[in-house]
Structure formats: C-alpha cells, structure tokens
C-alpha cells in the first residue's frame, strides 16, 4: 500500500460518504456509519505510520500529516464513527419525544455530517495554513444546519449566534493567516508549519505579534475562549447530542490546534517576549469564567458546553506554563478531552430522551429511571472533571505538577483552584440529576414510553472504552505518538 496516499484517502472517503448519502437517502444512516468506520481505520493506520515512519506527505505537497496532526486525527475518526452510530437511534427517539414539533432535518443530517467530518479531518491533513483556515471556516458553514437541526426558534437562535460569532472570528483570523503567509514567503519558506518555524526568527516581531493577536481573537472565538465564547453553550444546548459530540470533542479543538501550532514560531522569534504570558492570561480567564458559570448553569447540555470552555482554557494555560517542553501533559489533555467529551454528550443526550427536558431543576433520579444512562452520565462527569482513574486526571496532574515544579506558583495555583471549583460544580450538578427520587416533572411526562435506542447505547458503550482505557493504559505506539507530538511544540531558539 502506498502510504503517501493515506492523507488524501482520509479526505476522499467522507466525500464519497457525503455524495452517496445525498444519492441514496434511505440508506444514509448506514452509509454514514460505513464511511465513518472506514475513516476510523484509515486514521489509525495513518497514526501508526506516522509514529513509526515520520510525517506522511502527499498530493505534491498539498498534504502533510505529522505526529500532532495524526494525534488529533484519531479522536476525529473515533467521534465521527461513534456519532454516526449514536445518531441512528437518537434522532428518531428525539422525534418521538417531541411529536408536536416541526419535523427535523433528518434527510439533511447525514450528508451534512459527512461533509462536516471531511472539513474537520482536513485541518491537520492539509499542509498550507491558508487551506487550514478555509477548512476551519467551512466547519462552521457545514455545521450551522446541524446545530439548527430541530428548526425551533431557540435552535435557530443558537445557530445564528454560532455562525455569526465564529465567522467574525474567522474573518479576523484570515488577516492574520495572510500576514503569516507574507512573513514566510518573504524569507523564502513555504506557508506550512515547518516553513513557519524555520522562518520565524527572521519574520519581523511586530508582524508576528500582530498576526498572533489576530489568530488569538479569530481562532479563539471558534475555540470558545472567553470572552468570545458566548455561542458555545447556546449551540450545545440546542444541537442534537451527536452533533455536540463532534462540536465539542473535535471542532473546538481544531481552532485550538491552530493556536498551539503557532506557539513554537512565537518562541523562536527573539523579538517576541514571553508569548506564554498571552496564552496563560487568556487561558486562566477562560478556565476561571467557565468554572464560575458551571456553578449556576441550568441546562445539563449547556453544562458540558461550559466544561469544554474550561478544558480549552486548561490547554491554553498549560501551553503558557511551558508544559509542552519535553512533556506530554498539554498534548495528552487535548487528546483525552476529545475522547471524553463525546461520551459526556452521548450520556446527556440520552438523559434528555429519558426525561424530555434538559433543565437540571426538573430532573431527578436518573439512575433509578434508566440505570445505564444514569451511571454513564455520572461516570462521564467524573471523567471530564478530571477524577482518577480516567485519562484527564493524568494530564491535569502532569500539567499542574510541571507548573509547580517550574516555580510558577501563582498561575498554577489559580489553575488548580479553578479546576477544583469546576470539579465541584460538575459533580454537584450531576449528582442532583442522577440520584434521588424521580421528580414530579419526570413522573408526569411520558418518559416511561420512551425506549433508549440500542444504537445509541452501543455508541455510548464504545465511547466509554477509551475514557477508561487511556486512564490506566496507554499503548506504546500511542505513548510514542504523544511524545513526538509534544516534541513538535517544543520551544525553539
């Protein structure tokens, strides 16, 4: 097999999926599942190949897949697959639960999901960062109607805010992207990550800084960094859980991926002083705001939206703390979050199906009503909050330990306080939902008539596996890939 063709193949399969689901709409769910399964296998093969043989290139320089890109591809493939499986039963179950509402866009869902997956997969695969910008911009465009899937005023409001805020961010980032395009070209380097790092010492510092600020605002809006985060809880409260899993698990990570990859270029330029301070400041503001919002949230899908904001902030702060230097905490946090968050949304989506509402105040006793869903929601919350033995515990411990060891007591202390606060808030909110006597609202509703769809339960079970496995065992190839990816973010100069 010609491995150089792998990056292109990873993009061609979802494209074929999108076209086939448009043409054969009756088989769209199964075709999407098949497409996603093949894509997942290809992403695993690509990751193994990168781990053993170095970056993959192809398409006459159009594609480059390095260790960080490969590490990001793995959860994309996994979420694409589990989300496709989950959606088969879940979308039908939501329809039965809300028969009086306008019919959902079931026919549009699967083609859009395939194209959405395609553009997310393109972000780490394409070499040119102007093309990466286009891919990120298109993630918004193709997911807008997935967020507005249910066609209710609230869903349309969420989709509108999502499109406007993230597109505004994209336009701001575009100017930054084109400035870096100029910067790399002016010193004879290609507009790729490697070209940028090579060119960085010779790019004028004010230009690099201005481009970075534009990236931080622009891609920060997409990643949900405070104060550009307002679209994120709204979109997550209204979109189907299968869409939230992709949005939260990997789409926000795509924008953060861009911000992480520019970091070594900033540190390589002697004229840019302490770029980590930017990351740390924005990261801490984001984590802190999310932690406080988690205390007063009233919707359990919004809650996981704020949790995503919290994790984006943790990763950014970790980058600022310098945890990437020969360490793996930050990279592993990005990786682990992408696996854990879909599990949270799958559980939350099924809890919504069981109760017919997402209002925390109106639901009690989920475990007694649906033990599988109740325990899944509780375990997913513990996992995303960073409890042992789950994967995020390892990465958060690593980040904090490195922060204290390097003598950065104030920012690390603040990060610790915010993480603990978010942990308490998450566990408090979910314990109210999971335990106790079922609420009157639930009793009065038609919950007992709703059967939890089997495809969604299988997807939930599959999504649980990496959550627990990566907390106690990391396959050697994966550990090596994490190490290589962390090396790519190593400080230069």
């Amino acid at each position, binding site marked *: 097999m010609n491995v150089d063709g792998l990056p292109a193949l990873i993009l061609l399969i979802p494209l074929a999926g999108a076209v086939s689901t448009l043409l054969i709409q009756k088989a769209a769910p199964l075709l999407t599942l098949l497409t996603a399964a093949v894509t997942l296998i290809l992403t695993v093969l690509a990751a193994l190949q990168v781990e053993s043989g170095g970056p993959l290139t192809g398409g006459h320089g159009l594609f480059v897949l390095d260790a960080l890109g490969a590490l990001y591809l793995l959860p994309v493939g996994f979420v694409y697959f589990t989300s496709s499986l989950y959606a088969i039963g879940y979308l039908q179950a939501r329809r039965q639960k809300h028969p009086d509402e306008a019919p959902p866009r079931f026919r549009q869902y699967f083609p859009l999901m395939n194209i959405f997956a395609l553009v997310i997969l393109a972000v780490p695969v394409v070499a040119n960062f102007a093309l990466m910008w286009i891919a990120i911009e298109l993630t918004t465009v193709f997911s807008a109607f997935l967020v507005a899937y249910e066609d209710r005023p609230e869903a*349309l409001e969420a989709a509108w805010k999502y499109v406007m805020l993230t597109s505004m961010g994209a*336009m701001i980032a575009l100017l930054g992207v084109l400035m870096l395009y100029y910067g790399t070209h002016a010193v004879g380097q290609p507009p790729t990550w490697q070209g940028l790092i090579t060119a960085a010492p010779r790019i004028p510092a*004010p230009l690099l800084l201005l481009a970075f600020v534009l990236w931080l605002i622009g891609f920060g809006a997409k990643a949900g960094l405070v104060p550009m985060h307002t679209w994120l809880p709204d979109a997550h409260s209204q979109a189907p859980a299968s869409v939230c899993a992709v949005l939260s698990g990997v789409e926000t990570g795509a924008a953060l991926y861009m911000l992480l990859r520019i970091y070594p270029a900033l540190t390589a330029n002697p004229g840019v002083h302490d770029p980590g301070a930017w990351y740390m400041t924005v990261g801490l503001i984001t984590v802190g705001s999310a932690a406080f919002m988690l205390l007063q*949230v009233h919707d359990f899908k919004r809650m996981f939206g704020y949790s995503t904001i919290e994790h984006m902030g943790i990763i950014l702060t970790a980058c600022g703390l310098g945890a990437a230097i020969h360490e793996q905490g930050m990279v592993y946090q990005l990786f682990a979050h992408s696996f854990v968050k879909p599990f949270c949304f799958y559980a939350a989506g099924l809890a919504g199906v069981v109760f017919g509402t997402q209002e925390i105040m109106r639901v009690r006793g989920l475990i007694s009503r649906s033990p599988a869903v109740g325990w899944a929601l509780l375990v997913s919350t513990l996992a995303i909050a960073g409890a042992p033995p789950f994967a995020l515990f390892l990465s958060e411990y690593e980040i904090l330990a490195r922060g204290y060891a390097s003598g950065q007591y104030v920012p690390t202390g603040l990060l610790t306080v915010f993480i603990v606060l978010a942990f308490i808030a998450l566990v408090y909110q979910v314990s109210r939902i999971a335990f106790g006597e079922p609420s009157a609202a639930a009793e009065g509703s038609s919950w007992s008539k709703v059967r939890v769809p089997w495809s969604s339960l299988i997807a939930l079970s599959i999504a649980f596996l990496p959550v627990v496995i990566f907390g106690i065992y990391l396959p050697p190839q994966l550990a090596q890939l994490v190490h290589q990816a962390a090396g790519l973010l190593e400080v230069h100069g």
Partner: protein
Amino acid sequence: MGADHVVALSIDGSIAALFIVLGLGVMVARQMLASLRFFMWQSVALAASALVLAVDLHIYSLFWVALITVVSKVLAVPWVLRWAAGEEVYGCREVDQALDIPVSVLVASVLALVTWFAMVPTLPIFASGVPFAHINLPAGMVMVLWGAFTVALRRESVAQLMGLLIMENGAFFGSIAIVHNLTVIVEIAVAVDVPILALVIGLLIRNIRRVTGSTLAGALDSLHER
C-alpha cells in the same frame, strides 16, 4: 520610487478612500437593499485595487484575484442571497440598529483612529517590496473592525451578514498588498467560501423568518443563563 508607482499609489489611495466610504455606507444604510449595493460597490473597489496592483507590480495572479472578486462577490453573493432570502433582502425594508447614525459614525471614527495607531508600528516592515501595504493594510484593518462593529450595531440578520461580508472584504483589501503568491487552489477555495457562507446564512435567515415571523436577529434573545 518611480513615477509609475506614484501614479499607482495615488490611484490606489483614492480607491482605498472610496473603499472606506462604501464600508461606512454598508454600516449606516437605512435600507437593506442599499446596504447590499454598498457592499457590491465596495467589492468592485477591492477588485479595482487588485487591478491597479497587478498592473503596477506586474503580478498577474492579482488579475485572477480581481476576476474572482467580481464573480464571487459582485455577481454570486447577490444572486445567492436573492435565491435564499430574496424577500428579506430585496424588500424595501428599514434596517433597525442599536445606535443612531451620528453615534455610529462617531464610534466608527474612533475605531479607525485606534486601528491606524495600532498599525503604525508594523508599516515600516512593509516599506520595501510591497509599496501599497501602507495604504491597503490600514484600510483593510479598519474595514475588519467596522464589519465587526456593524454586526454588533445592526439588529437585522441581513444587515449583520453585510457586516460579515465587509470584514472579509477588509481582510482581502489588506492582504492583496502583501500576499501575491496565493496558490490557485487557495484562491479558488476562498472564492467559493464566500458565496457558500452567504448561501448558508441566507438560508438561515429564511428559516428564522419562517419560524419566528421576523428577520430581527436582535430579537433572538432567549438563550442565556438566568
């Protein structure tokens, strides 16, 4: 600096001024159709600037930029919007906005001044090799900020879309002066991206009107923490 550059700089400066004025028109136009027309003329100004740079610097890829701009923004975007949300755009409807026009112009002026002072330290970097940067970059950056301000200022969804589109125009107006080597695939992708964005937002506007009976994005305010 040769005489050709002086003439071209003077023409490009005039186009930049026109570009700014047309952006102001998008921001404060009272009717949606007028706002769309200001955007179309602003896109023509962007294409004209690309042509001036192409001729003066002998960079022929900028001819493509001019052509793509006209096709995607002057022709495709209005066509797409007519198809997706014709009634909302082409009905002669007054645009509701959060601030009145004099205050909006005042805020826009302050934003322009702030942008200018923020850009000044970077302009010497571009002095050699890219003679038009000190005209196009500040003008483009002003338009990016004005576009963002328009989105915040306007309560109508179509007018907010216009804000987004002038942000994109601003980013390109600035970048054509410094980036002359975009590959064909990037240029085509960017050209396709804008009409697709307009199409999706146009369809969203049509759905918002169908479901809520209005295109007032400012009235969509039910999702927040209590």
